[in-house]
């Protein structure tokens, strides 16, 4: 469900009034900008905007918005409290009742840092207005700087970019600075005289002030803030002089051997990396037309603050920039490097990175390229002052750098640090390295407009459609190797939203997304759909035509509801027909399954994600054969005798031999395959859409083999693997073997005494979750070609420190998002524990690339997630049993079905709790379920088409929309 918060209506609310929009939440769908009241348009436009984790700020694009020049939106769980924060008269520099310099103005820039909002108005483009007391309506206080000067000491033309820096000191106090990229006097940023101004925040105690100074409200009566515009070159107080960017210096932080031609005017982005305490500056540069292979420029700078001076350093030395495969710089004639946005990033293992949007190339070619560059942290064996003065601190780390684990005095983990900077050209990643390519080199619809990071996940906003996809928010997750370094990224996955997004943020606790439309001043908020409110035993049809309604209709709770749910994206082999790629959600219940199209290609060649109109488009084999099915059915329901023999159907997979594709389903009593009388499935070339369109009389489910207690079905490399509770079977995929699987199937793994609860196969590697622990096939073996039955006693047992033994659930994060690709290098989350102990520990592991390296002793490595020195701890430890655990890198979901008298629950673990390892229920956000009716939660899956997370169980499904 998407909530619309209409800002314009709220503009009528008096000065600093707030409005709670919670009452409007329950029954709203996406309200397109076109459906808004006409007067809502034009009254207010959003120019700049700024999202923090708890609030959003928008600045007026044109003058005339009066006190709504800047609007503040508090994104609280109770609703969004919005209001203008620029009343006509305020305290200015601690003098009361002064005209507000921001009132009724167009806003050029906004920046938030150190709990202060900074703004630049269009009519004073070289003055920073800092909100000292933003929340108090009666005592709002704004502090202004004088007009900032350029590098020559002349009044700067304008401020181009703002950033806040907080630096520590050896005596543990903090210094706060505002850094402004300023254009040259009557010129641009990028000119020789342009540069960076440094403004220091001085906190002054009241007793030090003169009698004439009037203090403001109670809360700030003791401390007043003074903005000191420093001479950024020499550190002189109130010197008000910017440090020049050095574009024409022969060799500077930006210029490589005088090869730099120009910096694109007024294009700059800055970010302060709090974990490195360095400022990073991103630019667009062009090299000279006569530049040699050793002349060029760097578009990425690193700056440090030392003794109130700003010092610009090269991100990497000149020699490291040679060759034009670098992201941050280029050499040679007429080369362009266009960096659009930069952002700090720190992995859950504590390793520092810098996200860089852009790269080597023209601006329009590089707006979809997002990279994560590792940064060197030199604080391993040096004191703080030495680290802060170290020019190599914060520069690019060597690709071979081994993280140093830093423990604090209390022996708790402080950080993993890459201490080795890049010193040779081989130490640097090139733009083609998968390690740094966020999104695993997959295509986004269009240019990235915003970046948001949390945990190990990166989210990006896209404003325009393209590449056959709608715009929206997309997500990629870092895959960490055994040492905690990023080794790969998952491909881009849509994250719920399907409209143009200008800015957004994700609520760290509730996982709701707040976003600003790219083309309209409207703020939206996604949230977890609440259960339908029904009286006990009330039988009413589902009120909507969404997926929830479909599932509730086809799989009623009295028949057990959903027993399984599987998602297959349109890139899944077998569904990835070039003509008709289709994403499928396969819902499974008692003796029945439903194939639900969640996306398909429309006539315009765009991938169309289905969010509603499910109920009216249900077809069955019978209705299709009688031509009584709805036109373009999206849901195909199968329920026949063979499915009836499988018991509860819990797992499904799609396999292909390249020509034919099949759907396999499994349950307690066996496996069945959808095929015709000759063993053929659907044509891989034409895709699964043919099942929905054609007469499928010949297609029936056929029992496949004689298996019981199926834990998982997985297809890989033209084989179907059936993981039962005691064996792993392999069946080659071909019509012949489909017809007579008993002739071709082979038991490749057999347990000795243990039970198998989960497992997966990818290429040569099989990983099994068993009652004895986590196992993989022995080094040197290849499960694809193994001809004899391996006993689990031969398998390698992966030691999980502190684990009780039983591993019952696996969750893979793979580059392609297909589980059967986990052997290409993936993250594995293994759930250990048991109901009897009533606890669950989650271990995080790295699966090495078995395709390249084969199976060896270190194929599966446990990440060093120990928070205490010499005391092994899991990645996460729950104080009760969890049957499901999944993550997208930003948040962690877990659930448990009913256990005796305890009701089932489905909760969300915020990122900040993760750092504490031990997760208590009261710290988690409890997702709404179907009240007293819910008993089982069988699966948590992400809908690959829409990106919504779905919790499935006997109650149906719950989604975040």
């Amino acid at each position, binding site marked *: 469900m998407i909530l619309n918060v209409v800002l314009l209506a709220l503009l009528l609310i008096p000065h600093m009034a707030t409005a709670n929009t919670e009452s409007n939440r329950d029954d709203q769908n996406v309200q397109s900008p076109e459906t808004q009241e006409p007067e809502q348009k034009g009254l207010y436009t959003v120019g700049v905007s700024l999202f923090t984790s708890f609030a959003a700020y928008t600045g007026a694009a044109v003058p005339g918005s009066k006190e709504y020049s800047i609007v503040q939106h508090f994104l609280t769980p109770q609703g969004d409290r919005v209001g203008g924060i620029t009343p006509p008269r305020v305290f200015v520099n601690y003098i009361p009742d002064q005209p507000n310099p921001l009132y009724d103005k167009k806003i050029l820039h906004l920046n938030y840092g150190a709990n202060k909002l900074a703004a630049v108005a269009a009519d004073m483009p070289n003055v920073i207005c800092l909100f000292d007391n933003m929340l108090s309506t009666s005592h709002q206080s704004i502090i202004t700087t004088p007009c900032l000067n350029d590098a020559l000491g002349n009044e700067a033309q304008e401020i181009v970019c703002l950033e806040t820096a907080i630096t520590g000191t050896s005596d543990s106090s903090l210094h706060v600075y505002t850094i402004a990229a300023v254009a040259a006097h009557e010129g641009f940023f990028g000119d020789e005289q342009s540069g960076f101004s440094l403004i220091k925040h001085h906190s002054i105690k009241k007793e030090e002030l003169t009698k004439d100074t009037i203090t403001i409200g109670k809360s700030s009566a003791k401390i007043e803030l003074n903005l000191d515009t420093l001479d950024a070159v020499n550190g002189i107080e109130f010197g008000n002089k910017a440090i020049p960017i050095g574009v024409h210096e022969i060799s500077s932080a930006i210029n490589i051997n005088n090869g730099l031609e120009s910096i694109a005017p007024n294009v700059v982005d800055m970010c302060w990396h709090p974990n490195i305490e360095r400022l990073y500056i991103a630019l667009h540069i062009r090299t000279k037309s006569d530049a040699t292979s050793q002349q060029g420029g760097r578009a990425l700078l690193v700056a440090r603050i030392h003794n109130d001076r700003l010092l610009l350093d090269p991100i990497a030395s000149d020699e490291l920039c040679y060759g034009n495969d670098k992201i941050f710089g280029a050499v040679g004639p007429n080369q362009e490097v266009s960096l659009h946005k930069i952002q700090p990033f720190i992995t859950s293992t504590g390793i520092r990175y810098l996200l860089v949007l852009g790269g080597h190339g023209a601006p329009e070619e590089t707006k979809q390229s997002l990279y994560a560059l590792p940064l060197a942290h030199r604080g391993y064996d040096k004191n703080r002052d030495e680290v802060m003065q170290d020019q190599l601190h914060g520069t690019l780390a060597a690709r071979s750098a081994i993280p140093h684990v830093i423990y604090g005095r209390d022996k708790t983990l402080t950080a993993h640090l890459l201490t080795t900077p890049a010193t040779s050209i081989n130490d640097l990643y090139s733009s083609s390295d998968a390690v740094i390519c966020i999104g695993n080199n997959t295509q986004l619809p269009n240019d990235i407009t915003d970046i948001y990071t949390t945990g190990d996940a990166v989210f990006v906003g896209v404003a325009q459609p393209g590449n056959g996809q709608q715009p929206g928010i997309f997500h990629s997750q870092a895959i960490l190797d055994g040492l905690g370094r990023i080794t790969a990224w998952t491909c881009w996955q849509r994250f719920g939203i399907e409209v143009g997004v200008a800015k957004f943020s994700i609520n760290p606790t509730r996982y709701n997304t707040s976003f600003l439309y790219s083309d309209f001043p409207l703020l939206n908020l996604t949230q977890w759909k609440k259960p339908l409110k029904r009286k006990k035993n009330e039988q009413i049809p589902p009120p909507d035509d969404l997926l929830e309604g479909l599932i509730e209709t086809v799989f009623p709770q009295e028949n057990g509801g959903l027993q399984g749910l599987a998602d297959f994206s349109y890139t899944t082999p077998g569904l990835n027909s070039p003509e008709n790629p289709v994403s499928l959600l396969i819902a499974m219940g008692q003796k029945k399954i439903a194939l639900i199209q969640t996306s398909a290609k429309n006539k315009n060649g765009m991938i169309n994600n289905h969010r509603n109109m499910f109920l009216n488009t249900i077809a069955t084999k019978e209705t299709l054969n009688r031509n009584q099915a709805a036109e373009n059915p999206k849901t195909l329901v199968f329920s026949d005798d063979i499915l009836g023999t*499988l018991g509860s159907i819990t797992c499904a997979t799609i396999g292909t031999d390249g020509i034919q594709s099949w759907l396999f389903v499994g349950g307690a*009593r066996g496996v069945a395959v959808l095929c015709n009388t000759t063993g053929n499935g659907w044509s891989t070339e034409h895709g699964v859409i043919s099942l929905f369109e054609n007469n499928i009389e010949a297609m029936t489910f056929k029992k496949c083999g004689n298996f019981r207690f199926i834990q998982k079905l997985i297809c890989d490399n033209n084989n179907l693997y059936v993981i039962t509770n005691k064996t792993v079977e392999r069946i080659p995929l071909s019509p012949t073997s489909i017809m007579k699987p008993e002739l071709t199937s082979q038991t490749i793994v057999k347990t000795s005494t243990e039970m198998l609860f989960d497992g997966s196969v990818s290429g040569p590697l099989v990983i099994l979750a068993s009652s004895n622990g986590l196992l993989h096939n022995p080094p040197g073996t290849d499960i694809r070609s193994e001809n004899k039955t391996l006993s689990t006693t031969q398998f390698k047992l992966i030691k999980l420190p502190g684990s009780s033994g039983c591993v019952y659930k696996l969750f893979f994060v793979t580059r392609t998002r297909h589980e059967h690709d986990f052997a290409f290098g993936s993250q594995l989350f293994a759930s250990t524990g048991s109901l*009897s102990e009533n606890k669950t520990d989650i271990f995080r592991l790295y699966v090495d690339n078995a395709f390249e390296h084969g199976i060896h002793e270190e194929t599966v490595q446990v990440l060093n997630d120990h928070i205490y020195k010499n005391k092994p701890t899991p990645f996460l430890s729950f104080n009760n049993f969890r049957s499901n655990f999944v993550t997208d890198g930003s948040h962690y979901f877990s659930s448990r079905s009913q*256990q005796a008298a305890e009701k089932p629950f489905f909760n969300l673990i915020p990122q900040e709790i993760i750092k504490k390892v031990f997760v208590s229920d009261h710290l988690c956000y409890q997702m709404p379920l179907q009240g007293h009716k819910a008993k089982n939660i069988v699966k948590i899956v992400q809908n690959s088409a829409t990106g919504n997370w779905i919790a499935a169980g006997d109650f149906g499904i719950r989604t975040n929309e």
Partner: protein
Amino acid sequence: MVINKNKFFYLVIFCLLFVEKTEAIFAINVFNPWDINLRPPIWCDTSFQITGYDEFGLKARGYNPDNDKVNVMQLWQPTQDALAMIQSLPATNPLRNILQNIQDDGVRGHFTVTGKFDLNASAGISARYHLPYNITISAHLPFYAMKLKNVLFQDLTLDDDSTENLLVRENLTDNFLQVMEELDPSLDLTGWKRTGVGDFAVFAAWQGSYCQAKPILKNVDLTTRLGVTLPSGLRTNEDQILSIPFGYNGSAGLWFGAGITLNWFDYIRGGLDFEFLHLFGNSRFQRIKIQRDQTDLLFLTKVYAHTDYGFTQQYNLYFEGYRFFHGLSAGMIYQFWRHGEDKLALFTNLYSDDIANTAEKLQEWTMHQVIFKLNYDFECDLDACSKLKPNIFVFYKLPFNGTRAILVNTVGVAITLNF
């Protein structure tokens, strides 16, 4: 009659030899021989009384923790959770391996257990000797005969084909008794029949009677008593399902009681009496709960543990027409029992005391019942010189509420001979 002091001493020593084992005091509403309601009146010029009684169970039912009437096998839990029992097995157990993470949906692996409990007899004999200064000493020995039969385990696991239910049915519930035989050959889930003595008790009482020169209130009787019970009774058989001890299960107890009886118009009496029991805690091997969802009839783990008993209180509120026709009295008694929570302390670190102490059978229990009685005292009809001076007392017990208790409707008779 003169009591042989040596024999009495040896009897006490003999009984003390059994003071080693205890479990919870079992909540069943049979009379103790020293119950105030079985105490006969003291005849003039007699110093010795012998009372024999017997009560027969008519209908037994359980009262669960919610005070609902249930089958006696459900007095602690409505269903028995075999899956939780499996969780209590060692990690190496193959059956636990198979079923260890199958979740309990409320019926999966659950059994409704029913059985028929018969109280064939609850009898006893008491001897009282009246000393000067209104002091009486007495000795009591009860006898019991009980039977638990027709124990049935009805599987509640859904008969569908979900993987979980199929695994549970095939491996656990379809052949439950056979599985239990393999898991714990010593545990008998089929019922039992037991006959034997209960705990021997010795009491000393003082009873004072104070005439009142008032038009309505004619007399006030005060009584107080102190006694000990010695563990001579049959104890719980840990290997039998719902085994009931005949007494305090091997524990010695200390009783204190007092009461007041008011006589109005010489033929109406009413009064209040209370008794408190302190049971001495002790240690023994017993079955304990080691998983938080385990149910009380399916404990597989035996450990050595110390039990501290809760405090037991018994209150009687009575009203009767006293000798309104010759020696005939008729009355009604409301009797209330309350026993506090027992606490286990395990002599092992393998299991959690906290979990063990969540067993329902260790929790507080209560019993409420009304006793209707008819009493005929032949003192009025016999000559004062008669050597045999009987008193006949018949009663009917009507239990009507309780918590975690087996309450039996009983009828009984008691005969007292005075010498």
